[in-house]
């Protein structure tokens, strides 16, 4: 071990997951925080930048610091930008990130992907392995950027082995401050459900996900891993457990829920691209990650749901 602290660049630093990852890393590593939304207020010794990774200014971060590893968490969600903007930032931005990592000799990259890439289909077997086909772009155009980002990361995984890329595909990550689609949905008092459908889902606490990112970074075993607990619950039970009331939406014929969701999608209330995920389960097998890194989630489903329940009671 040399004297110099390793320098770690964290993208999407304003998000709740990245904040937790930074908190876990910052006494052992030199952390650099980057976000496209705003300059993150952090501890004095953490340099922080507001920069879009697909813009030229991003390279200056690499010029100014000798970066050893990148934790690529930052992503523009569907509610934050239209398709073109997301494609530019998430896909082209990531490509630029990988190229900069090669150019500046970065030794390790962790990519935060999502289980959405597998796609929700009636034909999915349960406990999908990492080598299952990624069918999300078949389901909806809104997830094309997620799948493309995955493909890109996988290309660099074999094209640039020196980057030591680890791709993590977590199930639904929930918890205080999490602003992904599922978390925002369950924070609301009224949540859409499809009549007659209640697919099985997996949920992970954001603190456990932060732990997972840290062990993946510290143990450095490149590859693709699902990150999920071995516990399952159906969507409608999760909705009840989070203290939400259900807005039942007719589900047949299949065109109807899509139409209704488009009408109801004011303020991302009912994202059309999720309709299939409200119908069919996408259950991933997280055992490879658990085995490889000796990681186990510490919070159970009730811990996760109780936050949403209490939050509603407080605001009522």
């Amino acid at each position, binding site marked *: 071990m040399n004297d110099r602290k390793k320098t770690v660049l964290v993208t999407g630093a304003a998000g709740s997951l990245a904040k937790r990852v930074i908190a876990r890393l910052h006494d052992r590593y030199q952390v650099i925080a980057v976000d496209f939304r705003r300059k993150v207020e952090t501890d004095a010794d953490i340099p922080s930048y507001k920069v879009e990774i697909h813009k030229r200014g991003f390279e200056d971060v690499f010029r100014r610091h000798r970066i050893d590893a990148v934790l690529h968490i930052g992503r523009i969600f569907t509610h934050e930008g239209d398709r073109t903007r997301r494609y530019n930032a998430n896909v082209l931005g990531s490509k630029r990130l990988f190229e900069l990592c090669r150019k500046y000799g970065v030794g390790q990259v962790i990519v935060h992907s999502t289980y959405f890439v597998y796609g929700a289909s*009636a*034909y999915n*077997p*349960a*406990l999908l*392995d990492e080598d299952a086909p990624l069918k999300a772009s078949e389901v909806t155009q809104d997830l094309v950027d997620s799948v493309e980002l995955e493909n890109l990361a996988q290309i660099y995984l074999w094209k640039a082995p020196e980057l030591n890329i680890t791709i993590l595909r977590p199930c639904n990550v929930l918890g205080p401050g999490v602003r992904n689609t599922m978390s925002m949905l369950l924070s609301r008092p009224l949540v859409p459900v*499809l*009549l*007659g*459908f*209640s697919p*099985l889902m997996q949920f992970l606490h954001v603190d456990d996900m932060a732990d997972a990112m840290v062990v993946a970074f510290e143990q450095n075993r490149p590859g693709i891993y699902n990150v999920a607990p*071995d*516990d*399952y*619950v*159906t969507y409608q*039970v999760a909705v009840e457990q989070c203290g939400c009331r259900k807005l039942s939406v007719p*589900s*047949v014929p299949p065109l109807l829920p899509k139409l209704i969701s488009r009408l109801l999608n004011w303020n991302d209330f009912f994202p059309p691209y999720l309709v299939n995920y409200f119908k*069919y*389960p996408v*259950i991933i*097998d997280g055992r490879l990650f658990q085995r490889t890194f000796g990681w186990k989630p510490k919070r*159970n*489903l*009730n811990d996760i749901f109780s936050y949403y329940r209490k939050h509603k009671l407080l605001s009522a």
Partner: protein
Amino acid sequence: MQVYERFKQLARLASREEWYRRVVTPEVEQLIARMPKPVGSFGYDAWGYSENAAKLGLGVIKLLYEKYFRVTAHGLDNIPAQGRVLVVANHSGQLPMDGMLIGGALAMNPHGPRAPRAMTERFFPTVPWLGSILTGMGAVIGDPLNCIKMLEQDEAIIVFPEGIRGSGKPYRKRYQLQRFGNGFMHLAMQTGAPIVPVGVVGCEETMPALANIAPLARLLGLPYVPLAPLLPLPARVYLNFGEAICFDKSAVSEEEVTARVELVKDKIRALIDRGLNERTSVF
């Protein structure tokens, strides 16, 4: 008539809770509790099996098993009380009543109840409510990956290698085994799961079909639409479970695997004959 009386009794019950208690008796609860079936904190497993749905399902199946189809089962001691197993049977009767009743026999086995899993057609998950109900009771779509991972986790799986060739056949072809797929044998060899052959007698008579209305089936996207009674008839059902057979991995060519499948088929044929001989009246 017994069944009719029973339904009349049920109709008089007022509250939902009372209904539930009638169907999900303490006996049913006990059976579910005794099953060697791991579930998560909310009672679900990875394939959507739910303890609550299984209780209700078993309650209803128990009534049908005992009062409607008046099932006679032999050789239940051949089903291992725990560990992986493939229960392989002949398929008949248009609706999967045979799967339900074999499942009932497994779940109520006095030698040790098992949570039965069944492989279903791929269109079931697309049907609202029905898909959720079947999944909750333990059904999964017939994907080899599902089957392998379930056997690795020591589940008991019911397989009909004839598939819709068996269940959709007309009444005139009753008790003639259709072509068996080889998939189940590959799964058994790969996972080391023993095969318990079952001969089902009686389900052919629950829904005698004159013909398949193929154009209507195509229109509805269903495997077949039989010209048959609308509801299953109350035929007596006989289930004969044979001794478990283990197959090693020595068969390499598809020809050798087919020979093994034929062996299982012969066993099932013999078990069906036993059931037919024992049957004194169809209804």
